[in-house]
């Protein structure tokens, strides 16, 4: 095993750890927005580490640029869609909290 293989194994293994952390956060965190926070950051860091680790194995500039482009697309998509999903989830989240706190703070808003 040469040095490049070792670097690849370390980086892809670290990427897997971040993917597991992202899934654990998605399953364990208490509300929608903290789950979104765990998902979008940890997973894309894991994907970046795996892409970086594989870049050491490809040996051609074309493949390396393509790996970088895939990661860039994933990051841009995650940044955009996490903002959109967070804004969609906000009204439902507020309604759920209002229900949990009883009707003392939100009762005047619930006249419909």
């Amino acid at each position, binding site marked *: 095993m040469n040095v490049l293989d070792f670097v690849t194994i370390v980086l892809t293994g670290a990427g897997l750890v971040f993917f597991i952390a992202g899934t654990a956060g998605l*399953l364990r965190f208490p509300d929608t927005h903290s789950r979104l926070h765990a998902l979008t950051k940890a997973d894309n860091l894991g*994907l970046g580490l795996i892409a970086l680790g594989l870049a050491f194995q490809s040996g051609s500039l074309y493949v390396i640029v393509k790996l970088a482009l*895939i990661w860039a697309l*994933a990051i841009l*998509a995650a940044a955009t869609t996490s903002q959109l999903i967070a*804004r*969609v*989830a*906000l009204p439902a989240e507020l309604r759920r909290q209002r229900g949990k706190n009883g009707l003392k703070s939100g009762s005047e808003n619930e006249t419909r």
Partner: protein
Amino acid sequence: MSAWYLALAAILLVTIAGALIRVHRGPGPADRMMSAQLIGTGGVAVILLLAASDDDWAKLDVALVLALLAAFASVAFVKAASGDGLGDPESDADGDAER
């Protein structure tokens, strides 16, 4: 080296399967859509590993398309979830506060 990639891809698939638990539990549609996003990101990583495992780098195009479609799926969800279908959640939030 190929065995390492395949083992990694298998563990990654199990991790992605964990997202299905969140799809089952919910509670809201946004939580379920986040699981779909996780499956998209994890699927891209699995395809990258498969491409490396048999040195067939043409599979990177599949990963690129999957990343694009995962992004479009989330945008489509947001457009469908907003009341007027225009995809502006802020207008719905204001309407919810006034009602």
